[in-house]
C-alpha cells in the first residue's frame, strides 16, 4: 500500500492540495480546493504504513463509512471519500471556528457559559444519535462551533453506527478512547449505548466549570477503572459557589450506570437550557465523596448486575420524548384544555420516559417595549400565567422533573411555539383546536400554523362535539384529533 506522499501543489481525484494543517498520530489534515467548489475543504488522510497501528486502518474505514451517512448542521458536510485500494482519504467541509481545546487556558469558565456550551453540545449529540451514530470520543478538541452558533462534532474514528457492522468489534484488546473522558462501560468494551456520550460531555462540563478533571488524566487501565466504583469529588466541594442545578446535571451525566443518566441527550439539553426548573435531588446537595465503606462495598460487592444489554441507538429516543403542550388560558378554552389534559395523560401512560413542557404565550403588542414586560403589571401577568399552568397540570400528578412550565412572551404566538419546539428538540406538540367560533380567529390560526410549519409531530386536540351543536364549520387543516407529521 505504498503511496507517493501528498505534496502542496499536487492533485488527487480532482482535489488540489494546498497546505498541511495538522499532523496527528493517526491522520494528516490538508486544506484542499476543487474547481467549482467555493467553500473551504479539508482532506483527512490516514497515516498507514510499516509498523503502523492496524487500528488506524479500521478506524478510518469506520469514519469513511459513517461520515458518508450523516448530515445536518452538527457534523461537517461530507464531500468525498477515496478508495482504500487507491488512496484513502475523506474530503469534508473545513470549519472556520476553533474547537473548545484553546478554552482550557481559561478554566474555570462562568457557570452560565458552561451551561450554554453543554446545551449546544447536547443538542448536537441528540442530532447525531437520531442518525444512529454514537460518537464515543466526546472531548474539547472534537467540538467546534459554527458562526451561527451550532455545535459541530468532528472525528468519527471511534464512533459506532448501530445499523452498520461494528468493524472495531474485535479489533482492540484495549478499549479505545480518550482516557479522561471515557465512560465506565467503554472501559469494559461496550460500544452500543448512546448514553456513553453523556458521560464524556459530563466530564467536559465538570472540567470546564471547576478547572479540574473528575477522574484525572491517567491512561493506566487500573487507574481508569477506578471510575467504575469511585465517584468524583462533587463540584461544590471544589467551588463553594457552584450552583446546585449544575451539579445535579453534571453528576447525573457522570453516573456509572447508563440507566441513571438522562434517557436521551435531548432531555439533557432541555435541562441545561431550562435549569431554573430542574428537580434537585440529593446529587445537587452533595459536598463530599461517598464514604470509604460505600466505595469498598461498590468495588468488591458488585451486587447490582449492570444493565448493559444491547439496544439500538434509536430505541431509547421514542420512549423518552419531549412533549410540548400549548395552552390557551382564556375562559373559552376551558373544555379544550381538559381534552388536552386527557391527550397528555394518554401519551404519558404509554411512554414513562416522556417529559412534558407546558407553554403559554403572553401576547405582546407590536409597540410594547422590553421595559413594559418588566414592570410590575407585566411581572404579575407572567406569574399568574405560570400559576394557571401549574393548576392545569395538577390533576396529571406528575413528579417534579417530568414537567416544566414556560410563559413565552411574543407578538406571534404560533411563531413562539414553533421556535420553542425547535430550540428544545420537542418531539410532539399538542395544541388545542379552536373551541368555538368566538375564538376562531385566534386559536384556529395558531393550531393551523403550528401544524403546518412544525418540524415535529403536531396533534391538534379538540373536545368531542355534540352531534347537533355547532358542527360543520371545521376548517380542513384542523380535523379533530388529527395528527400531522411534517419535515
Amino acid at each position, binding site marked *: 500500500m505504498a503511496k507517493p506522499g501528498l505534496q502542496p501543489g499536487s492533485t488527487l481525484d480532482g482535489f488540489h492540495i494546498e497546505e498541511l494543517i495538522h499532523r496527528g498520530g493517526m491522520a494528516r489534515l490538508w486544506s484542499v480546493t476543487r474547481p467549482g467548489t467555493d467553500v473551504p475543504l479539508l482532506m483527512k488522510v490516514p497515516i498507514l504504513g510499516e509498523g503502523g497501528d492496524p487500528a488506524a486502518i479500521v478506524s478510518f474505514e469506520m469514519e469513511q463509512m459513517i461520515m458518508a451517512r450523516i448530515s445536518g448542521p452538527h457534523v461537517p458536510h461530507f464531500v468525498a471519500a477515496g478508495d482504500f485500494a487507491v488512496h484513502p482519504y475523506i474530503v469534508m467541509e473545513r470549519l472556520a471556528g476553533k474547537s473548545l481545546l484553546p478554552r482550557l487556558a481559561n478554566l474555570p469558565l462562568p457557570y452560565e457559559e458552561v451551561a450554554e456550551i453543554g446545551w449546544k453540545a447536547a443538542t448536537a449529540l441528540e442530532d447525531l444519535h437520531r442518525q444512529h451514530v454514537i460518537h464515543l470520543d466526546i472531548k474539547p478538541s472534537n467540538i467546534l462551533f459554527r458562526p451561527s452558533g451550532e455545535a459541530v462534532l468532528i472525528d468519527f474514528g471511534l464512533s459506532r453506527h448501530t445499523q452498520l457492522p*461494528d468493524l472495531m468489534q474485535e479489533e482492540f484488546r484495549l478499549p479505545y478512547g480518550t482516557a479522561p473522558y471515557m465512560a465506565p462501560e467503554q472501559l469494559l468494551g461496550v460500544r452500543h449505548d448512546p448514553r456513553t456520550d453523556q458521560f464524556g460531555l459530563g466530564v467536559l462540563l465538570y472540567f470546564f466549570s471547576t478547572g479540574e478533571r473528575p477522574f484525572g488524566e491517567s491512561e493506566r487501565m487500573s487507574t481508569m477503572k477506578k471510575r467504575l466504583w469511585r465517584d468524583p469529588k462533587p463540584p461544590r466541594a471544589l467551588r463553594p459557589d457552584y450552583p446546585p442545578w449544575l451539579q445535579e446535571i453534571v453528576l447525573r451525566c457522570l453516573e456509572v450506570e447508563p440507566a441513571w443518566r438522562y434517557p436521551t441527550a435531548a432531555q439533557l439539553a432541555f435541562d441545561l437550557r431550562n435549569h431554573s426548573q430542574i428537580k434537585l435531588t440529593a446529587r445537587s446537595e452533595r459536598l463530599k465523596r461517598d464514604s470509604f465503606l460505600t466505595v469498598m462495598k461498590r468495588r468488591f460487592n458488585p451486587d447490582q448486575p449492570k444493565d448493559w444489554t444491547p439496544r439500538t441507538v434509536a430505541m431509547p429516543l421514542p420512549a423518552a420524548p419531549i412533549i410540548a403542550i400549548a395552552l390557551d388560558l382564556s375562559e373559552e378554552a376551558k373544555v379544550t384544555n381538559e381534552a388536552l389534559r386527557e391527550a397528555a395523560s394518554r401519551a404519558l401512560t404509554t411512554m414513562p420516559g416522556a417529559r412534558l413542557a407546558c407553554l403559554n404565550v403572553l401576547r405582546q403588542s407590536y409597540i410594547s417595549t422590553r421595559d413594559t414586560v418588566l414592570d410590575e403589571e407585566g411581572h404579575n401577568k407572567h406569574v399568574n400565567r405560570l400559576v394557571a399552568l401549574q393548576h392545569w397540570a395538577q390533576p396529571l400528578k406528575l413528579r417534579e422533573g417530568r414537567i416544566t412550565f414556560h410563559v413565552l412572551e411574543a407578538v406571534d404566538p404560533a411563531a413562539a411555539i414553533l421556535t420553542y419546539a425547535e430550540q428544545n428538540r420537542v418531539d410532539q406538540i399538542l395544541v388545542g383546536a379552536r373551541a368555538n367560533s368566538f375564538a376562531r380567529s385566534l386559536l384556529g390560526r395558531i393550531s393551523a400554523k403550528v401544524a403546518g410549519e412544525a418540524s415535529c409531530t403536531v396533534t391538534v386536540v379538540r373536545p368531542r362535539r355534540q352531534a347537533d351543536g355547532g358542527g360543520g364549520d371545521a376548517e380542513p387543516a384542523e380535523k379533530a384529533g388529527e395528527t400531522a407529521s411534517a419535515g
Partner: protein
Amino acid sequence: MLIAFMADVHANRQAFSACLDHAREKGAQRYVLLGDYAGYGADPAWTVAKVMELVEGGANAVLGNHDAAVGTPDDRMREEARTAIDWTRGQLGAEERRFLANLPLIDTGPGQLYVHADASAPEKWTYVLTVEEASRSLRSTEAQITFCGHTHRPALFSVTALSKMTAFVPFTDVSIPLHGLRRWQVVVGSVGQPRDGIPAAAYAMFDTDKKEITFLRVPYDIEGAAAAIRKARLPQFFAERLFAGR
C-alpha cells in the same frame, strides 16, 4: 449492477413471486439463487420451473440439501422434512428432478462465491450461525464475498487480513458497504420460511458499483401459502410456522 440473492424458497410460491416482483421493481439485473427450492412448501413444481426459467435467463443457482434429498434421501433429515421431500418427489417431473440433480454445490461470480451453507465443506450442509462457523467458511475460500443461505436468519460476518472477525445482524433496508479491505460472508435469510421472528420473506440485493449489500423484507400472502400446505396434506406445522416466522 444490482444482483438479487435469494435462498431457501422452500416451494413457497407466494413468497417467491412476491420477492421476484419486489426485486424487479427495485431494478435487479441479475439473480443468484442459493439453494433449497424444494421442501416444506406446497408448490415445488412451480418453484423449480421458475428457477429453471431464471437460470435459462442467466441466473446462477446452486444446490441445497433439500434439493439433493429429492434425488438421494437424506437420513439426517427430520421426519417431517423427509415427509415433505417424499411428497415433493411425487410432484416433480423427470426434467425438474434432472435439473436439481445437476445443480452445482458451488458457483462463482467476480470476487464472489455462491454456496448453500458452509463453503469449507458444502456437501456437509453445516449452518453458518456463529463467528467460528463463519470463520471456518471464510478460511476455505479466497473470494472477497461469500453468499450463502441455509440458516433462514439474515447475518453478516467479516474477517480482516489479521483474521479479526465481526458479526452483525443486519437491519432491513439499510445498505451496508462491503469494504474491500476485508472479506465478507453474507447469509441472506430465507424467502419461503424465515426463522428470525419476522414472517416477511427475506432476500438481499448487492450493488456491485457501490459495493453495498441491502437486506430486504417483503410481506407476502402467508394465508395463501399456508392454505396450500394444508390442502396438500403436508404437516400442519409447516403452515403454522410461516405466520410467526419461526
